[in-house]
């Protein structure tokens, strides 16, 4: 198993043929899009330290200010999407991350060719994001508490769950169980990865089964649901946590809002499938501002491990 640390600065020699050190992922951030789709083409070419437009209030913000606020708009509170490396950096104690299963890569078991060629789509996502797949897992500490962590990255084919995501999530559960260390998963996903067909659907059962075994062993499991968490991920491991946290304004649900709209032939109520909506309906435990998330997770870890002392 290869491990990497957030604090390490890479030298060119550190590059491996199939992956980039975690610290290098930050270099990929200029490819991210903080703007409305129509403006993406112009602003995404620019380096950091530029003015960007908030998707929530449409105000123009200085990138440096936005980053200081962990990509939460200081004006309207909009929580902008984070890449997996950014999420790891904000949630974990600096230098504590040790990645596991970094080498797992997707194959194209069905030779899926309708639309884009799946194998090419995966290769492009690896190239674009610098990630091996749509989730990064490993060991870390959060506010001094040991944890197994997993963070999904929506940029990687909508963080859909295929064989590799399912396998890495399952191994994270198994690692947490073997080391009797709490598991913290930060989810974002469009659902199952249809290009892997039934192998992808079955990852729901596999991850749910792994979650159930961890629960039976009495090891805590905390989920942070972020924007968006939908479909087969919500309907499996993502909602089987002991404590379910959501970031403000995240879209969380089973069926996509457009499908629901088509089904009921009415427009959807405001805030439908938002974190706040789920809280109101008793589906999650709390909605936590990203700037307080690390402290809250650390506090919860201290409670859920209180019985061990």
């Amino acid at each position: 198993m290869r491990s990497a640390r957030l604090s390490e600065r890479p030298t060119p020699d550190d590059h491996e043929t199939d992956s980039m050190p975690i610290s290098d992922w930050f270099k990929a951030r200029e490819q991210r899009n903080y703007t409305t789709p129509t403006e993406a083409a112009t602003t995404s070419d620019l380096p950091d330290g530029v003015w960007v437009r908030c998707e929530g209030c449409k105000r123009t913000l200085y990138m440096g200010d936005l980053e200081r606020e962990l990509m939460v708009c200081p004006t309207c509170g909009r929580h902008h999407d984070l890449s997996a490396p950014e999420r790891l950096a904000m949630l974990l104690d600096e230098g504590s991350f040790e990645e596991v299963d970094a080498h797992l890569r997707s194959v194209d078991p069905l030779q899926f060719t309708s639309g884009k060629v799946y194998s090419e789509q995966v290769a492009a996502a690896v190239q674009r994001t610098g990630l091996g797949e749509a989730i990064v897992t490993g060991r870390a500490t959060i506010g001094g508490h040991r944890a197994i962590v997993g963070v999904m990255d929506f940029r990687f084919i909508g963080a859909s769950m295929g064989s590799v995501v399912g396998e890495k999530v399952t191994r994270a559960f198994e690692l947490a169980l073997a080391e009797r260390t709490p598991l913290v998963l930060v989810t974002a996903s469009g659902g199952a990865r249809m290009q892997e067909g039934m192998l992808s659907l079955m990852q729901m059962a596999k991850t749910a089964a792994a979650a159930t075994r961890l629960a039976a062993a009495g090891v805590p499991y905390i989920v942070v649901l972020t924007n968006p968490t939908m479909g087969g991920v919500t309907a499996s491991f993502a909602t089987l946590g002991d404590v379910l946290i959501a970031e403000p304004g995240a879209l969380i649900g089973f069926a996509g809002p457009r499908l629901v709209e088509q089904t009921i032939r009415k427009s959807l109520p405001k805030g439908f499938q938002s974190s706040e909506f789920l809280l109101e309906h008793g589906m999650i435990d709390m909605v936590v501002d990203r700037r307080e998330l690390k402290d809250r997770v650390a506090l919860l870890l201290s409670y859920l491990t209180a019985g061990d002392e």
Partner: protein
Amino acid sequence: MEFERPLDELEDKLASLKHLDVSEQPDLAAEIAGLEAEIARLHETLYAELTPWERVQIARHPERPKTDDYLQALFTDVVEVHGDRLFGDDESVFAGFATLQGRKVAVLGHRKGKNTTENVRRNFGSPHPEGFRKAERLMHLADRFGMPIVSFLDTAGAYPGLDDEDRGQALAIADCLAALSSVRVPVVVVGIGEGGSGGALAIGFGDRLIMLENAYYSVISPEMCATILHKDARRASETSACLQLTADDLVRLGLADAVVAEPRGGAHRDPEMVFDGVRTALSAALESLSAVDRATLPDTRYERLRRIGEVAGG
């Protein structure tokens, strides 16, 4: 069904010819014989190599035998249980106890109706959260009282409604997956028609998976897949081939253990033949699992799930 249209046309023509008086038209007998030969030939070719999309259509045929038909044909002393103890009773899911050749089992099944009235009550077999929670309740009962679970899959998917989201559709499915993975009784799943995504999976995995020849099981409906990839649901024929959703595909992928043959044209052409096949396959599966120590079943089931998926660099 769409692909049967040429056959339907010939059969209609034959029926209308047969109404005519042969004694007045000497050519008619020859014409009828010719038509009959052509129909027989078409029967051979039409069903010889069914495409995945044709099988999906057969799986959705309104006259196809449904969970209720299997309950009636295979089981005795059926007792249905109702309700999720939280909100309501979802008629799109059957839950209850039944006896199969002397063996007492817990039965789950998606429940399509045989007419419009029934289908409206049963939401065309697409469960609400209450249906999954009722199923979960039965799983726990089966676990506590040592009854094997037999589950019949026949749903287009979990219902994507507004109220369903309000009441936690995703959580209800996830809870079923958790329960099904941990029950200490044998779980045998039979795909009898449609196996639509998470709504099927919620009661659709276990220690054995038996598939009817023309049943399908898929991560997404071929139409939805075509809509996402091509913005055109009419390309479902293409996507249903790519998704590898047929019974044979599932065997090849290592997900299904047995395939029950159907009569030419689909199960609705000869339900008795299919009932016999399912009875045999089901009994064999339950028999082979009855010898296993119940306490070891969750671990064995987990190992079975654990092997699913293809990855590189492991």
